[in-house]
């Protein structure tokens, strides 16, 4: 019995390390505004949502960003890189407190805290979003981790002007 618990804890610890690596690469990709590559962190049928914490906790489904499937993420990436007008900026996404919560046949449930700091021309850096990821990871044919679900629940309900890039 003790061995089984040990093994499970060990599995989740390994999963956490792997997810941390994943999240660091994810953050770096968004810092570079490489939203085409960002979409590739997800499985084809993934669900990605950025949702205000008050909506989430009230059971209101409206997303600030709401993507059912990678195709919608690719469309957002295309729009951001080719059609959108916005001020030049530096992005700084920090992902911390990564936890692997459980692992079963659906995949690995995980969570993490995130903070997006934005810096605009001649403006002091400011927190654009602070929130928590609720994730479900699966493995692709090669065994690499992919997000099947990432729900980004942001505490910073009052948005400063607009959120341009995904978190």
């Amino acid at each position, binding site marked *: 019995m003790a061995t089984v618990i040990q093994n499970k804890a060990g599995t989740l610890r390994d999963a956490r390390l792997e997810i941390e690596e994943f999240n660091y690469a994810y953050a770096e990709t968004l810092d570079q505004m490489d939203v085409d590559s960002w979409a590739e962190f997800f499985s084809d049928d993934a669900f990605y949502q*950025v*949702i*205000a914490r*008050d*909506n989430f906790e*009230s059971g*209101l*489904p*409206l*997303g*600030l*960003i*709401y*993507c*059912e*499937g990678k*195709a*919608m993420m*690719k*469309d*957002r990436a*295309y*729009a951001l890189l*080719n*059609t*959108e*007008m*916005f*001020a030049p900026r530096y992005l700084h996404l920090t992902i911390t407190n990564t936890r692997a919560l459980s692992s079963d046949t659906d995949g690995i449930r995980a969570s993490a805290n995130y903070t997006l700091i934005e810096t605009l021309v001649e403006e002091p850096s400011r927190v654009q979003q602070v929130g928590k990821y609720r994730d479900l990871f699966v493995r692709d044919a090669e065994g690499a981790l992919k997000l099947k679900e990432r729900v980004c629940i942001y505490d910073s*309900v*009052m*948005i*400063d*002007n*607009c*959120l*341009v890039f995904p978190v």
Partner: protein
Amino acid sequence: MDVNRGLSGNSNGFDRAWPDDATRIPDWIYTDQDVYKREIEKIFLGRHWNYVGLECEVPEPGSYMRSYVGPFPVVVTRDMDGALHVFENRCAHRGVEFCREYRGKADSFICPYHNWTYDLKGDLTAIPFRRGVKGKGGAPKDFEMSEYGLRRFRVSTRGGVIFATACEDLESIEDYLGPEICAEFDATFDGTEFTLLGVHRNILPSNWKLYQENLKDPYHATLLHTYLTTFGLFVSSNESNIPTDKYGRHGGLLSRRPEGRPDVSEEEKSNMQAFKQTMELNDPRVLKFFPEADSKWSGSVLTIFPTLTALRQTNILNTRLLVPRGPNEFMMLWTVFGRSDDDEEMTRHRLRQNNIFGPAGFLGIEDNEALKFLQDGIRKAMPREGLAVLGEDDEATDTLITERAIRGMYRYYRDVMGF
């Protein structure tokens, strides 16, 4: 820094002179504190219906929500008999803003500072130690609780939309909107029951009037919003109409999306620097349109003076409440909703489509950025006047490359403000 602009003695008691030419809009209406104060008196507390929320946000007896009348925090409640009330969110005692939750259910409001208690109508129902302790202290003997209720606004609704006013003898909503705008208002708020899908909140570093201007400005739609043309949602040759009420204070931006891909003329292409050959989305579900309103228009943006905008674009339904926070900033509360008889797939369709609007929407990002740039220019640069020169005031209302509706709003604004 408050540079005194447009100096000249004027009978309105302000050192403000509007340029003689109605196509010129002076900077100071967007930046100056005394103009803002006058707007509070003449506009938000004046003879206007202020939008405060939707009935589906306070669906049951005891439901309440925070909202605003102009810049002033209010609470919107539904009492146990189902009647709606709007009163100030400020304790009659020391002035505490007592309601701190976005929304919820309650049977009374208790100010946390000294526990003065109000019912859902805003009446004062209890004050602790009213008689003092051991016969000493307490409220004055002649203290009448009925005189110390919360200040209330008059309430009226139409089609599930709640309005409030400080004015005692204002016309009905129908008359306030006028026949042209009321017809379009009723096409969206058609008496079906709505369901709240959620709320977006953001703060924009610009003057509240610039947002009304933005949604009265069809000229920018295909120039700033390349998304619209790229994915075929709107092009300048779409059939459209831009009605206003007789005062010019309310407006509509109505358009009809053609079936299939839009037909973009060579003339249009050459004028749109950012035009890209229309292309298909990887996930075209986002732009699907299920006709749902008794209207020929697939897109309807209504700007209801002073602080409501109501949008029905394809299957997106939302209202936006503009909450001024001084001349240089406003808060926007977006209430996004569906219809109560939507099935799960229709709800998800609306949620997918809402990627277009909101503070991270393809149009929302661009409008918010543009208005920030605009306020920066007005606030920081050497004072001058803005231009609203396009189109004619007596043109046919299907003219699209025009700033007629912006001029109309300022004709009314000058009249109310005494400029």
